[in-house]
C-alpha cells in the first residue's frame, strides 16, 4: 500500500488516539509539575485596649482571581513527586533511620498513601493473575470433557461475570457479603459471631477484593484456553496414547505445550487489567482498608470543590511508568519476532 493511501486510511483512528490518548498523557505530565496557587493571606493588625494583635485571613477575592488567571497554578517542578503523598523520600528516609526492625520500617512506609496503594495493586495483580490462569485452565479442560450439549450453556453462564461491568458485578457480590446478606449472614452463623464483618479488617477486605477479582476475570482465561483446546492436534494425542501415555501425561506433554503461547497472551491481558483495579474498591466502599493506584488518582480528582490536579497527575505518571515496566518484556519479545520476520 502506498504511503499516501495508508495515511488517509489511518488518519481518523490515528488522530483520535493522538488527540485523546497521547496528548492527554503529555498534559497529565505538565499538570503534575504544577501546584495550585496558595491562598492569598492578608495580615491585619487589630489594636484594642489590651494591645495589638496580628490576625491573618484569607483574601477570597484575590485568591479566586489568582486561581482564575491560570488554571494550572504555579510551577512546582518535581516537588509534587517528592512530597508525602507520592514518593516521599524524606519520610522513607526518616522511617529507615527511626525504625529498629525491618518490618517496622515496612509498616511505616506502607502507611504512606502512594506505597500503600502500590502494595495493594501489586498484591492484587500478583495473586489474581496466577490463580486465574490455573483455575481457567482447569475449568477449560473440565468443560472440554463435558457432553456436547452442555458446553454451550456452560460457556453462556461463565461469560456473565466477565461481561458485566466491574462496578455492577462487585455491587452484586457486595450485597451478598453484607452482614445482612446471604453470604455474610451465613459466615456469621458458621463462625458464631454476629459482629463478624468482611468489611471490618484489612485482611478480610483484601481477600474479598481478590475473590471478586478472580470471579470477574476467570471467564476470560477459561474462554481463551477453551478455544485453544479445540485446536490441539488430534494426531499427536492419539500417537501419545498409542505410545502408552496416561491421561495426565497427555495433558502435561501434549496439551499444555500447545497452550503455552496462549498462556503468555492471557497473562499479558490479565496483568494490564488487574493493574488498573479500581471499580471494586468504589463498590465495596473498601477505601478504608484497600486503595489502589487508580483509586487514589480518582480520589484526588474527586476532592470536592478543590480537585488536586497536580497530585493526580503525579500519581498518574508513576502509574504509567509501572504499566510500561510491566509491558517491557512483551514489547521486547514482539520486537524480536518482528525483526526475525523482516530478516
Amino acid at each position, binding site marked *: 500500500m502506498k504511503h499516501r493511501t495508508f495515511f488517509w486510511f489511518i488518519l481518523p483512528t490515528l488522530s483520535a488516539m493522538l488527540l485523546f490518548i497521547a496528548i492527554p498523557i503529555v498534559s497529565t505530565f505538565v499538570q503534575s509539575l504544577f501546584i495550585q496557587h496558595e491562598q492569598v493571606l492578608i495580615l491585619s493588625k487589630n489594636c484594642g485596649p489590651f494591645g495589638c494583635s496580628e490576625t491573618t485571613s484569607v483574601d477570597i477575592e484575590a485568591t479566586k482571581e489568582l486561581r482564575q488567571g491560570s488554571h494550572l497554578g504555579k510551577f512546582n517542578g518535581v516537588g509534587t513527586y517528592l512530597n508525602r503523598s507520592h514518593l516521599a523520600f524524606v519520610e522513607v528516609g526518616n522511617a529507615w533511620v527511626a525504625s529498629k526492625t525491618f518490618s517496622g520500617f515496612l509498616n511505616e512506609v506502607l502507611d504512606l498513601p502512594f506505597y500503600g496503594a502500590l502494595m495493594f495493586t501489586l498484591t492484587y495483580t500478583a495473586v489474581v493473575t496466577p490463580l486465574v490462569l490455573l483455575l481457567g485452565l482447569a475449568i477449560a479442560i473440565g468443560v472440554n470433557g463435558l457432553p456436547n450439549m452442555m458446553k454451550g450453556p456452560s460457556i453462556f453462564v*461463565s461469560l456473565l461475570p466477565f461481561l458485566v461491568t466491574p462496578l455492577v458485578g462487585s455491587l452484586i457480590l457486595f450485597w451478598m457479603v453484607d452482614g445482612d446478606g446471604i453470604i455474610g449472614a451465613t459466615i456469621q452463623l458458621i463462625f458464631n459471631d454476629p459482629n463478624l464483618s468482611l468489611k471490618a479488617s484489612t485482611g478480610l477486605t483484601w481477600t474479598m477484593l481478590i475473590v471478586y477479582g478472580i470471579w470477574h476475570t476467570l471467564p476470560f482465561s477459561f474462554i481463551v484456553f477453551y478455544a485453544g483446546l479445540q485446536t490441539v492436534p488430534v494426531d499427536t494425542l492419539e500417537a501419545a496414547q498409542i505410545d502408552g501415555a496416561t491421561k495426565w501425561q497427555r495433558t502435561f506433554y501434549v496439551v499444555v505445550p500447545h497452550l503455552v503461547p496462549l498462556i503468555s497472551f492471557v497473562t499479558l491481558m490479565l496483568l494490564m487489567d488487574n493493574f488498573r483495579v479500581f471499580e471494586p474498591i468504589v463498590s465495596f466502599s473498601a477505601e478504608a482498608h484497600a486503595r489502589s493506584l487508580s483509586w487514589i488518582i480518582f480520589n484526588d480528582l474527586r476532592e470536592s470543590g478543590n480537585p488536586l490536579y497536580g497530585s493526580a497527575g503525579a500519581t498518574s505518571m508513576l502509574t504509567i511508568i509501572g504499566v510500561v515496566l510491566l509491558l517491557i518484556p512483551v514489547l521486547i519479545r514482539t520486537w524480536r519476532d518482528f525483526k526475525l520476520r523482516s530478516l
Partner: protein
Amino acid sequence: MSRTARTRITFVSTLSFSLVALWLLIAAFPFAWTFWGSFKVQSDFFSKADWMYALWGTNTIKETGNSFTGSGYHGAWIVEGFWKNFLNSGIVVLFTVIISVTFGTLGGYALARSGFRYAFWILMAALVFRAMPHITLVSGYLLPFFEWNIWGYLPTTIIVLVAMNQPFTIWMLHSFFLNVPKDMDESAMVDGCTRFEAFRYVIVPVMWPGVITTALFSFLLAYNDFTVTVMLLSEENETIIPAINSFLGTTQVEGKVMYAVAAVVSVTAPILVLVLFFQRQIVSGLTAGAVKG
C-alpha cells in the same frame, strides 16, 4: 491393570466435573439471587433472620400483600428517573459503536495491508495505549475540557470513548483483515479500481463478521464504562453506571437500596440478551488476539 486405570480416570473426571459444576454455580448464583431478590422488599433481600425469607418473600407479603413487588423498579425508573440515564447511555453507546467501528475498519485494513515498518510501530503504540489505566488519561482531560467549556456533554464523552476504544479495535480488525486474502483487493486493483474502490466494493461485502464482533466489544466498553463517564459527565447527562454509583451515595435510607438493586438488574438484563444472541461472536472476539499469538 486396566481396572485401576479406569477407576483413576473416573476419579479425575469426577473431580473435573465437580470443579466445573462448582464454578458454574459460583458464576450464576449471584445473578440469579439478585434477580429474584430485586422483586422483594429490603427486609427480605437483606434478611438476616432467615435467608428463606428472600426466597418466599415473607416480609414482602406482609408489606405489600403479594410475594412479588415492582416497587424497586418503580422507584429506580420513575422516582429516580433512571430512564433518563438509560436514554443517555443509549445515545453514547450508539454513536461510540458507529464511529469507532468506522475508524477502526479503515485503520485496521490499512495496517493489515501495509508492510512498512511504521505500521508495526503504530500497532505497538496501540498496545501500550491499550494498557494505560483510563483514570490516568482522564486526569489529563479535565483541565482542558473545563477551559474549553466542553466538560459534561455527551458528545465529548463519545469522542473520548471512541479514542479509548481504538487500540483494541484496530488490533482486532487488523488480525481479521490479515485473514482476508490479499488477492481479492489486489485483483480488483489490477482491474482498474483505486485502493479505496477496492476496499468499498470487494472488502466491505466480506468484512461483516469481523465488524460485528468488534462492534460487540465497542458496545460493551461504552455500555460498561464507569471511569470516563463518572468524571466527564454532568449530573443531568449521567449514563447508567455512574447513575448507579450516585444512587448508592444517596440511598442508605431504608427501602432505597432496593432502587439500586433494581437498577443493577435492569443494567444486567441487556448484557444477558446480548450474550444469548452473540455468544459465538463474543467467544471468537475474546480469542482473536490469542489465536494469532
